[in-house]
C-alpha cells in the first residue's frame, strides 16, 4: 500500500511517501490511521486531531469507514487551503 503525506502532515511525519503493508486487521481507513499512530511519535503527533485529517484513496475523497484494498494509493493531508 502506497501512502502519501502532504503539507504539515508530511513535515510532521517526516516523509512525503512510503510503501507499507498493514496487518490483516487493518481493513478501513480509520483502522489504518490508528495503526499508523502506533508506529511512532511523529505519526501520533501528525494524526492526533482527526478533524484535521483528510483522506483520499486512489485520488478520491473517502471517509474513515472506507474499505481498503491492496495496491491502494492512500493520501493523508490537512484541510486544503488553495484558491
Amino acid at each position, binding site marked *: 500500500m502506497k501512502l*502519501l503525506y*502532504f*503539507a*504539515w502532515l*508530511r513535515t510532521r511525519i517526516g516523509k512525503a511517501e512510503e510503501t507499507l503493508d498493514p496487518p490483516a486487521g487493518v481493513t478501513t481507513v480509520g483502522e489504518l490511521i490508528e495503526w499508523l499512530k502506533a508506529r511512532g511519535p511523529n505519526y501520533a503527533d501528525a494524526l492526533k486531531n482527526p478533524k484535521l485529517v483528510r483522506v*483520499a484513496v486512489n*485520488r*478520491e*475523497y473517502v471517509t474513515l469507514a472506507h474499505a481498503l484494498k491492496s495496491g491502494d494509493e492512500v*493520501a493523508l*493531508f*490537512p*484541510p*486544503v*487551503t*488553495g*484558491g
Partner: protein
Amino acid sequence: MIRVQREDFDTGKELDALTRDMTSVGGVTSFVGLVRDVAGAEKITSMTLEHYPGMTEKLLAEIEEEARRRWPLAAVLIIHRYGELKPGDRIVLVACASSHRDAAFDACRFLIDWLKTKAPFWKLEETSAGARWVDAKDSDDDATKKWDKSS
C-alpha cells in the same frame, strides 16, 4: 479546460482565447486570486503552494463537469499555480463564459468556493516570524456548503 502549472499566466490572453471563435457568448465572468502580503500581524515574504499531482487535475476536471451540468456554459477555464510565489503574484484564474450573465457569475463563484475547500493545495507562508502552514477557514467551508444540492 483546466491547467495546473508552476508558470504564471496572462489573464487577458487566457480570457481572449477562451471565447475566440465563439458566436453566442454574452459575457465572461472571472476571478483572479492573488498572493497577499500580510497574514495577521506579519508580513509575508513568499508563499509556497504544495499540491497533490494527479488528484488535483482529476478533481478540477470533475468540478468543471459539475459546473457545466448545473449551468449553461459556453466555456470554462481553471488555472491554478503551485510552487513558490511572491506577494502580488497570481495564484488562480477561474473564468466562465455564457450567454447568460447569471450563469457566468454563479458558476464562477461556485468554482472558486469549491476550489478553496476541495482542491488539494496547501499554502506555506514565509514570514519574518518563520514559515507556517495556512489554516483552513470555516468561512470557506460555509461558502462551499451553500452549493450543496442536498442541503
